[in-house]
């Protein structure tokens, strides 16, 4: 019985099979790169076609968006401001509330409270966005109209608030993760000096988790910007360059939905507009995601 001895046929076949299997698995992993390439390719091709007919200056800086009218205008700013307005309102709700919730859960809450709060937050995060859209249009807006009689049926405020509620769990859980990454030693040092829990939390833990928390905030903004159904249902389809949350606005995402619902033939300029808007949306969210990922990596390095 030696280690020499002919490599039997089955052994060689096995080696080849293993080789093929590894390459097959690798190909599947590469598919994810294919997805990114596909997104960029599709968006680029159609946007290039769009920009052949519409100068980029008019697109990016024009203040009227009426591509489906007889006398079309292709200034995307109303869509951008619509998106930013709703997102701003959402962030005013989600960021402070999410951070407070995270601080409380991370530094104060006992196990019983966690057992109630965690599932609630998970539930809030898991509700499909159409449901939130329904809620925003048919409950929140009428409710707000009791206090603000001038509030129109479609507006930025209602969906903004509801979007904030939807994003709150994301901010909370990511910030909580960041705070839990702060080593116990830092807290203990603070307590040992006689600091209260609040002082320790706000002046030691949160600053220490700063880049992690910022990463969470940026991810939340990216999520708000990319959100579609809540605004498609409740914000309206009138592109309006305004900062007034009581008027209807249209976001970039809602516009894409609007056109997709219609019967726009392929290859027309109107068809290409959704890709141009989509490209803008993609660049914006992708950029934010990259910054967020970079911040998270830096945070990990600080406390790894």
């Amino acid at each position, binding site marked *: 019985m030696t280690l020499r001895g002919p490599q039997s046929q089955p052994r060689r076949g096995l080696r080849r*099979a293993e080789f093929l299997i590894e390459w*097959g*698995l*690798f190909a*599947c*992993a*590469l598919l*994810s*790169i294919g*997805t*990114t390439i596909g997104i960029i390719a*599709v*968006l680029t*091709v159609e946007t290039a076609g769009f920009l052949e007919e519409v100068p980029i200056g008019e697109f990016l800086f024009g203040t009227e968006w009426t591509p489906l009218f007889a006398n079309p205008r292709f200034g995307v700013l109303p869509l951008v401001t619509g998106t930013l307005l709703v997102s701003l309102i959402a962030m005013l709700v989600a960021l402070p509330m999410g951070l*407070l*919730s995270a*601080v*409380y859960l991370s530094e104060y809450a006992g196990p019983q409270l966690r057992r109630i*709060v965690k599932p*609630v*937050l998970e539930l*809030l995060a*898991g*509700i*499909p*966005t*159409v*449901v939130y859209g*329904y*809620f925003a*249009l048919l*409950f929140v807006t009428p409710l707000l109209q009791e206090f603000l009689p001038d509030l129109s049926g479609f507006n930025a405020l209602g969906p903004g608030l509801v979007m904030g*509620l939807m994003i*709150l769990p994301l901010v909370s859980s990511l910030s909580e993760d960041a705070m839990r990454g702060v080593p116990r030693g830092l807290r203990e040092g603070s*307590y*040992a*000096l*006689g*600091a*209260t*829990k*609040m002082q*320790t939390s706000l002046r030691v833990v949160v600053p220490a988790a700063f880049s992690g928390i910022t990463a969470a905030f940026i991810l939340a903004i*990216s*999520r708000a910007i*990319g959100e*579609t*159904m809540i605004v*498609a*249902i409740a914000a309206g389809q009138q592109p309006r360059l305004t900062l007034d949350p009581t008027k209807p606005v249209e976001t970039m995402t809602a516009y*894409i939905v609007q056109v*997709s*619902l219609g019967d726009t033939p*392929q290859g027309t300029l109107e068809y290409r507009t959704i890709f141009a808007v*989509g490209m803008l*949306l*993609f660049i914006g*969210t*992708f950029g934010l*995601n990259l910054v967020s990922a970079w911040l998270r990596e830096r945070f990990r390095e600080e406390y790894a």
Partner: protein
Amino acid sequence: MSAQISHSGASDFGPRVPSPESRTPNPESRAGARAIALRRGADVAFQVLALLVLVIALASLATLIWDIVADGAGTISWNFITSFSSRRASQAGIWHALTGSIFVIVVTALIAVPIGVAAAIYLEEYGGRSLAARLIELNITNLAAVPSIIYGLLGLGLFVRMMGMGRSVLAGASTLALLVLPVVILSTREALRAVPKTLREGSYALGATKWQTIWHQVLPVAAPGILTGLILALSRAIGETAPLITIGAVTFVTFAPDSIWSPFTVLPIQIFNWVSRPQVEFHANAAAGILVLVALLLSMNAAAIWLRDRYQKRGIL
């Protein structure tokens, strides 16, 4: 005269001797006592504020649930579930959308599972820390955060137009598969990582190849975890509206899809359609549709949780 003032988090050591550097107020002085009381007050106020936030979140959720139930409970009926769409609200049902949703999700799973599990196996078992593997990982993390409507645009340009699938179930399922792929990959990797190293070592020591070890030992043990992650990913996909609207899952489809090439609609799109109508009767239908959707979601999540519990009870090694 030791003023034993304790505040949360700090320990009591009796009377404090103020040192020149110490910013701790001296409890024995009146100013010091006030400062401490102020700090305690602020601490309490902070806790109240935080609790208030949680209460608001809880209350909002409760309100939302109550609102939907109140609006939709009256319309929910077996008839509602099994009827097709109609111009008349009272006769409109969701059967076409419900079957569409289920059909699309099943096809999505059939596409996403082999690719996702294969990719995860590669990254977890073969890739290691190579440059290719790390790039792929980075890419997957980014893809997980791309807005779902962008996937819709990809599906429109690639599947519907370029590959000529048209506005079919296959195009919708392919689009959703790409959407859930990052999540499937991430959760499958978690499940693979949970398999103890000793299991792999035992297999290698017997002269097994890498793939033999993965196929015969690692995958069977990781399977429940993979399945749980998959069900959770699919339950998110079933609520997705935007990408399917974009690829053209039209809202006026009134029949249940009969093949992967047929046009289709899904529950969330039908709900969207009804909500967007000005007539109030359709709003009730929308609410009822939401209840059906949520019921579907809850059952999927319950299945995932049951699987996870059963898996934990059996344990591994």
